[in-house]
C-alpha cells in the first residue's frame, strides 16, 4: 500500500507544469483515473493523478500550485517519494463497449489522467477523441502525445492556441455516446448535463487520509446522501454527484 518511488526524469512541459517520471518497486497494472497520495509538503499527503504507467514507470504531470507541488517539482533523479496507493476508482475503460464513441474532455490540471485513459482505450481498440482546454498557449502540454493516440482538439480561453474558448466550444455532443472528463469544477459542471448518454467525471477535492476515513472530501449526491471523493471516486457517473 505504501511504496517508495524513485524519480527517473523530471522536465518542465509548460509554464509552471512539470512531468515527473518515477520507477515503481515493481511492474504494475493500474486502472486509469486512480491516484497516488504522495508524501510531499510539510505534513499532509497530496493526491496526484496518474498520467501514465508503462512497465515499472509511472508518470505524474502537475502544476505548481501550493507547497506540496512546488516541493514535488524540485525533486531530482534518484530522489525517493513515499507513495500511498494507487487509491480510488478510475474510468471504466474495461467496461465500455468496443464500439463506444468516446470523447475525453480535460481542463488544465485535469488533463493528465486522460492521457493514460486514452492510451488504455486505444490499446483496447476503442476509437476516441480528446478535447483539451487550457487558459493560454504557454500552458498547453502533452498535445503531441495525445495526437499520437487519436484526434485531439486544443482550446484556449484567450485563443492563443487552438480554438478560442472553453472545452465546450469544441464539443459536439451528438458525435459521442460516452464522455470521460477531468478538470476544474466549472468545467465539470458545464459538461455534467450535456446530452451524451454515459458521462463519467473525475472530481477534485481537498483530501485528508485518502482512504475514506476522515470525511474531508465528501461530495453531496442527489438522493441527499454523500460520496467520498477519495474512496468512492474520484471518478463518478455524472448523475451521481452534485457539483
Amino acid at each position, binding site marked *: 500500500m505504501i511504496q517508495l518511488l524513485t524519480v527517473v526524469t523530471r522536465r518542465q512541459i509548460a509554464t509552471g507544469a512539470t512531468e515527473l517520471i518515477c520507477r515503481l518497486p515493481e511492474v504494475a497494472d493500474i486502472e486509469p483515473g486512480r491516484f497516488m497520495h504522495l*508524501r510531499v509538503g510539510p505534513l499532509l*499527503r497530496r493526491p496526484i493523478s496518474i498520467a501514465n504507467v508503462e512497465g515499472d514507470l509511472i508518470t505524474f504531470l502537475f502544476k505548481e500550485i501550493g507547497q506540496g507541488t512546488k516541493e514535488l517539482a524540485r525533486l531530482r533523479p534518484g530522489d525517493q517519494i513515499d507513495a500511498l496507493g494507487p487509491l480510488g476508482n478510475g474510468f471504466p475503460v474495461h467496461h465500455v463497449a468496443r464500439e463506444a464513441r468516446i470523447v475525453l474532455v480535460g481542463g488544465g490540471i485535469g488533463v493528465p489522467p486522460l492521457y493514460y485513459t486514452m492510451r488504455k482505450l486505444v490499446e483496447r481498440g476503442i476509437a476516441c477523441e480528446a478535447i483539451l482546454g487550457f487558459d493560454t498557449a504557454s500552458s498547453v502540454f502533452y498535445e503531441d502525445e495525445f495526437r499520437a493516440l487519436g484526434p485531439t482538439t486544443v482550446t484556449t480561453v484567450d485563443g492563443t492556441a487552438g480554438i478560442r474558448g472553453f472545452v465546450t466550444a469544441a464539443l459536439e455532443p451528438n458525435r459521442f455516446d460516452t464522455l470521460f472528463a477531468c478538470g476544474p469544477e466549472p468545467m465539470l459542471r458545464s459538461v455534467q448535463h450535456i446530452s451524451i448518454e454515459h458521462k463519467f467525471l473525475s472530481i477534485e477535492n481537498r483530501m485528508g487520509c485518502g482512504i475514506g*476515513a476522515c470525511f474531508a472530501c465528501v461530495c453531496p449526491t442527489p438522493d441527499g446522501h454523500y460520496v467520498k471523493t477519495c474512496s468512492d471516486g474520484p471518478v463518478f457517473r455524472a448523475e451521481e454527484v452534485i457539483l
Partner: protein
Amino acid sequence: MNRLHVTLPGLNLKNPIIPASGCFGFGEEFAKLYDLSLLGGIMIKAATGEERYGNPTPRVAESGMGMLNAIGLQNPGVDGIIAHKLPFLSQFDTEVIANVAGSTAEEYETVTRRISQDPVVKAIELNISCPNVKSGGMQFGTDPMMAAELTKRVKAVSDKPVYVKLSPNVTSIVEMAQAVEQAGADGLTMINTLVGMRIDVRTGQPILANRIGGLSGPAIKPIAVRMIHDVAQAVEIPIIGMGGVMEVDDVLEMIYAGASAVAVGTANFVNPFICQELISALPKRMDELGIEHILDIRGKAYGATLHRA
C-alpha cells in the same frame, strides 16, 4: 507481564495506543491495512442523535506542521452506528470507546444511553470540545458550570465509564478538568483541536468553507503536553493524552507529562500504519531509555509551572 499493558476505568488496554476519534472513521478502512486487534483501543467517530452531513467543503487545510479541519461531526447517527458500525468492530480484540456529541443536553443523554448499552462499547468519550458545529460541541466545553452539569447528566444515563474530552480553547483547562472531575467524570481525554483559520491570499477569503476549523498535528503537541502536565497534577482521574503525536518519543512525552494512554489522530492521515508502527517501536525505545513498564514514567515530569492556566 506485558510492559505496555494499561488498565483504566472500563478499559483493559493491551498497549497505550489508541487512534483518536474522527481520524479513524469506524475502523473499516484501516482494517484493510492491518489487524485492528493490535490496538490498545479505538476511539470511534462522534455519534449524534440523528445522521449528520457535516460542513460544506473544503473541510481541510494544511498549515505549518498542522492541519485545520472542519468536518462538522458527519456521522450516520447513533442508531446507524449501532446497527451498521459496531457489529463490524465486535470482531476485533480491542477496546471501543464511543465518542458522543450533540446540540443539546438531551441529545447527549439520548446518544449516551443508547450507545453505552451496546456490549462492544467499553467507555464513552464525551465530546464537549468540537469547534466545528454551530450549537453544542465546544459551547459545553468552555464553561465549567455547563461542562459539569452535562457530565452529571450523561453519567446518570451511561452504562459505561465516561471520559470527558477537553477543549484547549479555554482560559483555564485545569479549572475545566476539576469541574468535570467533581461532576463524576471517570477520566479525561485531552486535547481536542485549537480553533484556527487560514486565508487564501488569491481570493482574500478563508480556505475552509466553515471559515474556522480545528488545528491538529505536531504544531499543537507542546500545548497538549503542557496542558496534560498541568491537569494531571490537579486531578485524580486518569488522562488519555492526544495532540500531534507522530512518533514514539511523542508517546513517551505525553506519559511523562501525566497521561496513562495516548491517542493518535492526524498522524493516521500521513501514515495510515502509524499506530501499528508505534506499538511495535515502543518496547525497543523503552529498552534504550531503561524504562521497564510504560507507566513507570507516568507523571515523572511533574513540577510546578510558573504560569498555571
